[in-house]
């Protein structure tokens, strides 16, 4: 659909996207340990879908905290595919973490039976938020923090549900683009079937992220690493061969979805207002 950047720019972007999986694993394991322990916890809860992101996070948590301290919760809806279940199972077996299966079909269907039929988008958002409430409840039961699984590509593009899959206490992979997760997954020993499959929200048969977004993560990540991380201007990206439609589409998604990445807007009245001039680190007091 879109023209690719010229080869030099693609190679440069790939250089910027390169990670040393070993070093990243060392940093992220310590991140999970430090951030969970400073909140006086030892354990983690992860919503496991059998996709690349949640599999990577499950492996990282197992490594950081010991598999016995990690609870992978599978939260299928009735339309979830069989491969989702199989892949999640494989992750649990390989990583040795604890697991619990808590389908969300009953409560989601009960709600829509009362609220009336809804669009695909409402159903998707409802499922994501239903999963969130279950994860937070399970984290209380297990004495753990919820560890997030949104990657940088999704966070920038707004391809996630606010207070749904975007909700977590800490997120180890939120600064890694989708294409950077693959080498990390490989290094961590994520099963090959998961590495090979197309990213999907698993909402209906044949759904893929890239089909819905209308571009590939490979193209988007190259563009975003230049636009966001390296501060290239639009004209520079066009000159380097990126299709103007792709640049504008992605820039718009990033801008339009910024609200999802922030706290709700507070009407300022006093001298010190939360998150404006009441400035403390999130880790304040831990």
């Amino acid at each position, binding site marked *: 659909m879109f023209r690719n950047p010229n080869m030099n720019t693609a190679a440069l972007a790939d250089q910027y996207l390169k990670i040393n999986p070993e070093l990243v694993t060392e*940093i992220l394991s310590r991140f999970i340990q430090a951030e969970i322990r*400073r909140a006086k916890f030892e354990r983690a809860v992860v919503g496991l879908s059998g996709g690349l992101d949640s599999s990577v996070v499950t492996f990282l948590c197992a490594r950081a905290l010991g598999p016995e301290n990690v609870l992978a919760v599978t939260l299928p809806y009735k339309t979830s595919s069989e491969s989702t279940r199989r892949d999640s199972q494989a992750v649990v077996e390989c990583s040795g973490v604890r697991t619990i299966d808590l389908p969300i079909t009953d409560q989601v269907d009960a709600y829509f039976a009362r609220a009336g039929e809804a669009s695909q988008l409402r159903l998707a958002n409802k499922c994501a938020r239903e999963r969130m409430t279950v994860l937070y409840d399970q984290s209380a039961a297990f004495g753990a923090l919820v560890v997030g699984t949104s990657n940088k590509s999704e966070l920038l593009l707004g391809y996630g549900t606010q207070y749904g899959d975007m909700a977590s206490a800490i997120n180890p992979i939120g600064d890694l683009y989708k294409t950077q997760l693959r080498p990390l997954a490989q290094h961590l020993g994520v099963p090959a079937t998961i590495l090979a499959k197309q990213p999907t929200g698993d909402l209906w048969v044949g759904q893929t992220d890239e089909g819905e977004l209308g571009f590939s993560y490979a193209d988007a990540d190259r563009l975003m690493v230049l636009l966001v991380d390296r501060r290239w201007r639009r004209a520079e990206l066009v000159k380097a061969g990126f299709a103007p439609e792709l640049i504008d589409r992605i820039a718009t998604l990033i801008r339009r979805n910024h609200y999802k990445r922030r706290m709700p807007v507070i009407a300022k009245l006093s001298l010190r207002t939360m998150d404006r001039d009441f400035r*403390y680190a999130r880790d304040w007091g831990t």
Partner: protein
Amino acid sequence: MERNVSMTDDGAGRRVALAQIAPALGDVPRNLALHLEQIEAARRQHADLIVFPELSLTGYFVRDMVPDLALSPDGPEVRQLIDAAGPMAIVVGLIEESPRHRFYNVALWAEGGRVVHVHRKVYLPTYGLFDEQRYFAAGERFVAFETARFGRVGILLCEDFWHLSAAAVMQAEEIDLLICPSDSPVRGVEGPNVRISETYEQLSKAFSQLLGATVIVVNRVGFEDGLCFWGGSIAVGPDGRTIAQAPMLDPSLTLAAFDSLELRRQRLITPLGRDERLLVTIEEFNRIRRKRYE
């Protein structure tokens, strides 16, 4: 100015402890206890000097906590550390509140039972992830000072170390030892090491050779709000060779043993300090000042 004692003339070795700690954010009592532990461990290993990272008594992302965490260099907390250190010199990082209620990011050198020098950070990074000018007043001096066992010493705090002009002043000050307490977070994870750590290593090696001085960088470890401080503290001799390096990412107390005669040898081999033309530099800076400001 003549010195009484210098690294260059007594021939004895010097042992420096690089205290690569993970301070607790905003918890001075806890950090004080951590400092005392490290001082005790360094004394057991017969260190002559222990160097802590930037803001070692408070943690880095102090933001609106700044006025609540500020201390006096003459206060009881620093006193406790000086007393515990005994004959050992110490470099500690803290927030100083001035009599005019300005708050400075400082590192102090204490030895012989008293504070010898307080360096107020001049270059407060306020870009990218940094926001220091919002919270701190900027120092205005780069001054070296005489010490009992390390000759003439200069302190550059973290971002100060990235300014060539600061190093040039230290060269004009004819220092023997340059100390850089630092709180540097991870950026760049594509190579074998954190990218920013390689820059620090390059700067340490360049400055040690250009100044003909020993360089010690002590960087903290641990996490604050998702930022990973990478450690990797390093001691480099005046010939640009690494004498000791602490591990990446993990806390450590790393001992660096210096041959104090190496300064003399290096200055014989490459007498850059002797050949410096201070008046030429000043004249050129004055010319530029006239052009730019007059």
